């Protein structure tokens, strides 16, 4: 570098930068690691194939919904309607497949179209009309919940046998010389869904121009707009994605429980926000990624498996979930505070 160049970079390597790097790894990874060790040590049944398969299947709906929720959080928004969209999807899928079993692919498409429509309404209100995402999605979610209960007051309907296979199936076992017993698997479809969606989702967020725009809008909306980004359109797309992922989650859930349930999606709204926050995504936008979210989803899954093993009442589980969200928020606060003071 010539002497006339003003050098603005000076970042010596130090012990501090290592601790900072460790601090940057989300709390979800640590939580997952600790919980896995505890679970494996305390429950000898924990590390068995059937149990792990079950864990993954139980985490799939939340895993799928969390992708969309993280996207809305990245643009400094939130989607409180995902729970209702999940419930609506199970109800429509179950009712329609019961009366038109031959039209299963068409019904899946119908559900996705409904998701597109709901997401478009959310995205239009939040992106173009600049309405508050919290209130807007709370309202749209409530309306959808009402519609769902109108369609089906109590659990009922049933999905087709083939459709059930989507959540219950597995491939393998495969030959695997390193694995104990010489085989790997069988690998449940659910694990493949999660892996594919998270890989593609991460690719979109981290590698594409759209993904960069999502981070920019969440990081500083005014700046993104002045840089020539169409911020309204980006928000619209994000809310459509969120609803589509909720529908995908709902379809998996319908396949798993085999019927429709107008209230079954309810817990996923808060759980997906918890997973996002625990996974290191900021509620203020612009910061976060999907893998942290997946680690958080699995953490919640392991936790609930452990609690179930030990026969802890579901009511206590609610309390524990609430405490975890607050704890995750507190950790997020401490992590950002260090930077700004």
């Amino acid at each position: 570098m010539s002497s006339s160049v003003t050098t603005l970079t000076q970042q010596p390597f130090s012990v501090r930068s290592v601790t900072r790097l460790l601090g940057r790894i989300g709390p979800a990874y640590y939580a997952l690691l600790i919980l896995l060790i505890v679970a494996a040590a305390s429950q000898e049944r924990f590390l068995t194939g059937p149990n792990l398969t079950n864990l993954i299947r139980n985490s799939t709906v939340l895993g799928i919904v969390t992708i969309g929720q993280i996207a809305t959080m990245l643009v400094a928004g939130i989607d409180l309607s995902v729970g209702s969209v999940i419930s609506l999807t199970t109800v429509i899928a179950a009712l329609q497949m019961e009366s038109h079993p031959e039209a299963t692919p068409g019904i899946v498409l119908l559900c996705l179209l409904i998701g597109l429509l709901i997401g478009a309404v959310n995205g239009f209100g939040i992106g173009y009309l600049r309405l508050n995402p919290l209130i807007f999605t709370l309202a749209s979610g409530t309306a959808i919940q009402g519609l769902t209960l109108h369609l089906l007051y109590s659990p009922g309907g049933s999905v087709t046998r083939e459709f059930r296979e989507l959540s219950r199936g597995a491939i393998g076992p495969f030959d695997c010389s390193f694995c104990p017993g010489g085989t790997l698997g069988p690998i449940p479809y659910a694990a493949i869904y999660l892996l594919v969606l998270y890989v593609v989702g991460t690719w979109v967020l981290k590698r594409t121009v759209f993904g960069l725009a999502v981070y920019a809008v969440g990081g500083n909306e005014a700046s993104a707009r002045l840089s020539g980004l169409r911020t309204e359109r980006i928000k619209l797309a994000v809310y459509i994605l969120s609803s589509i992922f909720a529908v995908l989650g709902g379809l998996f859930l319908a396949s798993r429980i085999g019927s429709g349930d107008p209230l079954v999606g309810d817990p996923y709204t808060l759980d997906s926000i918890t997973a996002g926050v625990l996974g290191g995504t900021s509620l203020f936008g612009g910061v976060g990624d999907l893998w942290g979210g997946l680690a958080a989803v699995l953490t919640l899954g392991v936790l609930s498996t452990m609690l179930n093993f030990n026969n802890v009442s579901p009511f206590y589980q609610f309390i524990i979930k609430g405490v975890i969200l607050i704890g995750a928020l507190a950790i997020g606060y401490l992590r950002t505070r260090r930077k700004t003071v």
Partner: protein
Amino acid sequence: MSEPFLEMRNIVKTYPGVRAVDNVTLSVGRGEIRALVGENGAGKSTLIKILAGAEQADAGEIWLGGQRVRYDSPVEALRLGIGAIYQEFNLVPQLNVAQNIMLGQVPKKWGGQVDTEAMHRRAREMLARLNVSLDTRRLVADLDVAQQQVVEIAKGLARDLRVFIMDEPTAALSAVETEHLLDVVRALKQQGVAIIYITHRMREIFQIADSVTILKDGRHVETSPARSLTSDAIVAKMIGRDLTDYYPPRGTPASEVLFSVRDLNVAGKLFDINLDVRRGEILGIAGLEGQGQRELARIMFGALPYDRGTFLRNGQPIRLSSPSDAIRAGIAYVSDDRKRDGLVLIRSANENIALPSLSRRTNGKILIDEKTERSFVHHLIDRLAIKVTHRSQKVNNLSGGNQQKIVVGKWLGMEPQILIVSEPTRGIDVGSKSEIHHILRDLANQGVGIVMVSSELPEILGMSDRILVMAEGRIVAEMDGTTATEEQLMAAAAIHSVSDTSVPVTS
């Protein structure tokens, strides 16, 4: 000067309670550098926001290359080749340097992928044009103000604009960086770009501008070739009166020491800092941008951690591990980044001023006594001559000069004995600047010890009773404010920064 390329005709913009731009007409030719000057609140910012598509005019037309153009968003303005770099940086802190520079025109590969390599290469090219080497992978959040300014400028360069609006591009830059920027502006001129250049620094106007447009109270006052104007004439037309007694007369500081720093060290940043602040004095801390002045100021307010050092208040050691420790010790701090640290932008002038002294005014009661608060705030607003249409006006909508007065005002409410100000007049107009200077001197005369960090030499020389010069994290010289000259200061500040080996310098 060539044919008018850009014309803004009879532009009008009204905000609730203010006519920000009142029938302004402006035309700029290709390859012309037009300085746009005026006090804060004169309508410059609004005018350029309209030109850049960030705001819509209530009336008026914009013509470009002989054709009327209409647009109502920054996207469309950029498509026409009209772009701006703003005084309040429009950067995304969570993204890295390259992403910020290329935001809105990121190079693509198949499948809508970001072409990361091309993005970093192009960002580096832009930085190289500014003669700056900055790692394009660094997060903007980790950059200091000068570095962020460079990124903002590079972002403008990356767009190949036909009309390039620059709002105070040098406000945060050092002398050397400013020279590089001015070279770049001249190069843009050679390429036929029409440039609108907003600055409060008279010297820059005469260095680069072809012509000057002066605005006052939203109206066009005059447009003349820069050669036909003098600095005094411009100032007089901007404020509508002659500016005599630019700096207030100095007082007579006492010898009593209010606050001392002893052997303060921060690894890699500050080395063996010792200083005393005396009753009634203004202690100027001078130096090139980024020599540790800013960190020192923040440490003295308990807002940054340090490795070693002690602080004495009236000779007694005190702890300074948080701003509330400092406030309790009677120390107040006016930040150089008023938007980030100084103001709650979406609250009213009223509430901002009342904030730090709330606990004092409530006398331990839970509810805020609105009547006391109101009279107290009104008193301060009058004293500081803050121009608000009404006292509950959001701070967002005020001009920079008035915002800065509010920041100062909110600390006056707690009656500090030591006031630390960092770049107190950065980016504000001459009128407000002078008012701030008078307020600081009044406070000193009342016995407050003032530490003033500033990279503007005239301000340091005009205001300080005593001057400490910093270079590379050390205090390298102490001077008497009444006798020091610009040359002495420059010489002292430059010693370390020029040489590669750090030779110990005694003051």
